[in-house]
């Protein structure tokens, strides 16, 4: 086969690409647009100034990574609520099963994806930290 034509074709392709708009995202300066259904950090939904969670234990049951710890408590109205709700982000696989399983729509997932930290203990997200994410 003629060896010159493919080389010229290749050169034409690279020259065409030279004038294309680069796809690079200058990350810390430019932020990616996260999809609406992106599964990032969890957040506990709030209603009437308190978490909607009723501590039904469906999310720790369905969780394949066993990263959710829930402890039930009783409030002044004798309603069941989660006195402790912890997610270990080092174990979480962001599958979203907890969101699917929740019968009262108490947990959702946000677009937050920068979860790096310096200490292991900082990866365990307590109820307060999960509530902060409105």
């Amino acid at each position, binding site marked *: 086969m003629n060896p010159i034509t493919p*080389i010229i074709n*290749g*050169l034409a*392709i*690279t*020259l065409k*690409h*030279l004038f*294309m*708009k*680069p*796809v*690079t995202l*200058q990350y810390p300066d430019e932020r990616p647009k996260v999809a609406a259904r992106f599964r990032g950090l969890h957040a506990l939904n709030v209603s009437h100034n308190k978490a909607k969670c009723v501590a039904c234990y469906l999310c720790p049951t369905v969780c394949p990574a066993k990263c959710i710890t829930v402890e039930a408590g009783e409030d002044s109205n004798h309603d069941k609520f989660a006195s402790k709700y912890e997610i270990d982000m080092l174990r979480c696989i962001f599958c979203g099963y907890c969101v699917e399983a929740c019968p009262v729509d108490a947990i959702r997932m946000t677009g937050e994806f920068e979860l790096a930290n310096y200490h292991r203990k900082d990866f365990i997200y307590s109820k307060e930290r999960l509530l902060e994410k409105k």
Partner: protein
Amino acid sequence: MGIEILGLPMMYYIAMVVKVLVAFVFVLLTVAYATYAERKIIGHMQVRLGPMRTGWHGLLQPIADGVKLFFKEEIIPSQASTFAFLIAPLIALVPAFITFAVIPFGGVIEVFGYKVPLQIAAYYDTAAGQVFDVNVGVLYILAMSSLGVYGIVLAGWASNSKYSLMGGLRASAQMISYELSAGLAIIAVFMLSGTLSLGKIVELQSGFGGFEWYIFKQPLAAFMFFICSLAEINRTPFDLPEAETELVSGFCTEYSSMKYAMFFMAEYANMVTVCALTATLFLGGWNGPLAVAFPLLGPVYFVAKVYFLMFFCMWIRATLPRYRYDQLMHLGWKVFLPLALVNIVITGIIGYFI
């Protein structure tokens, strides 16, 4: 001007030194920014951005790289031959730069009433009224460019490492194969010009308003010389001496810090030299429209041509993958060598009848 040395006034020597310095610094800067340009161009050809974070659009990247390499730890392997190991980067670097001595980068300009030819190893003889340069300039360049490989072979040997040795061996084999074809390719040019002086060759291409270039008369020779030169200076697609996939980093595997930077600089300086030589031999050197009337336009045309060729080198690098070793040898000995010989014969026959 009272002081005279060898019958020439002091200012003349100062002008010459300034010329050398300006040319050298310009080449150094070009070498530094060739690395930046290469990363930028290849980046954009791969629809990336290339360096962006040091300075505006990464413009300070070469300086940052230089400073980083300068402060890196210098490692000399305990089993290496220390003297050869230390001297090898210099042997690679120096020929790459001194080649520039004979390349004309402009016509004759007047400084303080003295006519200074824009070519380092040249002077204007006022009595004879013409420029004298090295009359075997091309031979000098071929000699220097083949000297550069000694640095690489020495580096490969002195490192006392298998990868380095393989890189050095490949470099020498490649150099021998392609030096021959490159040399034979430009013989056709000398058959047309009848001189080895680069200044004369540029002068001969000044017809047609500066467009009587040898590339139009010798397209095959130009093509072959450029490709063989790429192989000679170990650039992609012929960068087998430092093929990362096979040889880690080839001859410079064991080098670190400033010595590695010297090899890097030598590589890019060689690229500048080869592009300058191709521009001189085939693209009319500093010739161009109005270059004779306005001597300062000469260097502009020359630099534009050299930069275009360097862009072409980078373009090729972004396009072609590395040749396999046997393909490289096949191309050198079975394609380019016969083609160059046939080209000489054809040029001879045509030259005889015209």
